[in-house]
């Protein structure tokens, strides 16, 4: 027991010393420690897409954080880190940067003023949906205040502020297929579960596959709704229309000790671009803070 107490006191002391040493003044001559997500992450592909680096592989020396919690841990603990994450997952341990002078807020994402945001939509053929009362009621549910509260609670941005509550229709029964974007999939699962509490005889089957699958499945009628996580391109599914379910904002984050408050989209692209030449590449914080 005694030994235990002594060793825990020692351990605490050691941690205390390390923590105290950690709180040193910010040194802008240090390298920017870029943190990204693992390949296949929806947030990563959306972010790279939004800054104009779609499909590009990682820059050198990047830190790959597997999961949102790891990103928060890294940026919260490392004064020289820079990362991105879905707005809903950003905690108070880190600082959000303005992008091109625009604050990342729900309002700015709704209005489209904030650059790093994307719509998460369902697409469907109007003929199919108007012929199916079940599909029509699901669309009505997605626009309802019941859906909007789930959307906001799970960290996404609701696009329908004036929504009204969903009213169940007793006689509806059957199965609805929803497939596509894995970015929208987790939210859609929550929404479908809520919908099924209203329409107890209805089943919503959700599968992933990616935005591309969403387009083809909705166009070919494989599933009633396709999920896409980018602006709707009518050429990819000429028979379909889209309806935005929610918007997803991606925040650029740094450590609270970092004096930087804003970053331009161009600089952001420079940081994550592996084709940027060494002479123009931004590597240290002074290059961003001085400018």
């Amino acid at each position, binding site marked *: 027991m005694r030994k235990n107490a002594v060793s825990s006191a020692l351990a605490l002391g050691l941690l205390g010393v390390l923590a105290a040493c950690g709180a040193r003044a910010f040194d802008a001559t240090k390298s920017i420690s870029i943190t990204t997500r693992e*390949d296949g992450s929806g947030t990563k592909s959306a972010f790279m897409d939004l800054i104009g680096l779609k499909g590009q592989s990682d820059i050198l020396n990047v830190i790959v954080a597997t999961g949102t919690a790891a990103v928060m841990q890294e940026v919260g603990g490392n004064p020289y880190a820079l990362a991105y994450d879905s707005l809903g997952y950003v905690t108070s341990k880190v600082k959000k940067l303005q992008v091109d002078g625009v604050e990342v807020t729900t309002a700015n994402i709704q209005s489209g003023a904030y650059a790093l945001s994307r719509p998460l939509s369902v697409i469907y053929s109007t003929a199919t949906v108007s012929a199916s009362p079940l599909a029509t009621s699901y669309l009505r549910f997605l626009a309802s205040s019941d859906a909007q509260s789930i959307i906001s609670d799970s960290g996404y941005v609701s696009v329908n502020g004036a929504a009204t509550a969903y009213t169940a229709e007793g006689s509806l029964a059957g199965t609805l297929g929803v497939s596509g974007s894995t970015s929208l999939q987790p939210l859609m699962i929550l929404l479908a579960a809520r919908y099924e509490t209203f329409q107890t005889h209805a089943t919503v089957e959700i599968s992933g596959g990616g935005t591309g699958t969403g387009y083809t499945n909705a166009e070919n009628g494989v599933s009633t709704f396709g999920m896409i996580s980018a602006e709707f391109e009518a050429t990819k599914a000429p028979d379909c229309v889209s309806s935005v379910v929610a918007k997803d904002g991606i925040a650029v984050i740094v450590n609270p000790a970092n004096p930087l408050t804003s970053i331009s989209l161009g600089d952001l692209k420079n940081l994550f671009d592996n084709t940027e030449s060494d002479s123009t590449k931004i590597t240290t914080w002074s290059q961003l803070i001085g400018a």
Partner: protein
Amino acid sequence: MPISSLRYRAWREKAMKGLFFLSAAFSLLALGAIILYLFANGLPFIAKIGFFSFFFSTTWAPLATLPQYGIFSMVLATLYVTALSVAIGAGIGLLAAICLFRFVPSRFVTPLRWLIDLLAGIPSVIYGLFGLVVIVPFIRDYVSANGMGYGILSASLVLSIMILPTMVSVSYDALKAVSPLYYEGALALGASREEATFKIVLPAAKSGIFAGLVLSTGRALGETMAVIMVIGGSPQLPVSLTESVRTLTANIAMGANELTSDALSALVATGVVLFVFALILNLSFSFLRGKEGGHV
């Protein structure tokens, strides 16, 4: 004894035999299934890509427009991390074992060994967490020249702690197995305690210690969770101790939940490479143990 009781005994005998046989068969079946899965899914992929462009290419970009599946950077990173952690961990472990064996009063040996063995019971994610919140920031702020705390150094430090218990207990047992006559004989010939221990007993325990080394290497090679948290994860050629790299195990763990089709096969193929590494290690362990004559 009534006949029915004898029959029952014979039946019970048979049933237990069957149970033991099933248990043995299950372990073999599990091994067979894993090997079959690895090779059936991994080898066709390696054949498709070509062994050289899979193993010796350094570009890992499974989701690029033109996907590339080169694992050589990660093979190197794995070898560096393993070598450095074994060098640190086995060095400290061996000295600790010698200390326990010769220089610690015998009444302290059992509790101390128990404490060291406790290290083996800590889940690897705890080591990873310790590395992430203590070792990585420390290296970033005080050791690293480039301000990066992640990398081979952090991973090796975490792993070296993890392999200590293996190294200490195997080496200790190997030293214990050496006949005390060697030691006493050396003393009688005028050697000091240190000389007798390091020059006579240690060489005699050599193959047991090597076995400990091989086991530690296996632990370091296969560890995933603790490594993934402190290695950084960028699949690039390692050129410095403090820079983000990725090991083979980390590569599999990072992609397993996210990647599909060809990229997933590439992960299985990575698993095949790891499996072959582990197989080589295990074979050399069996070889050493055979030479030792059953001491370890």
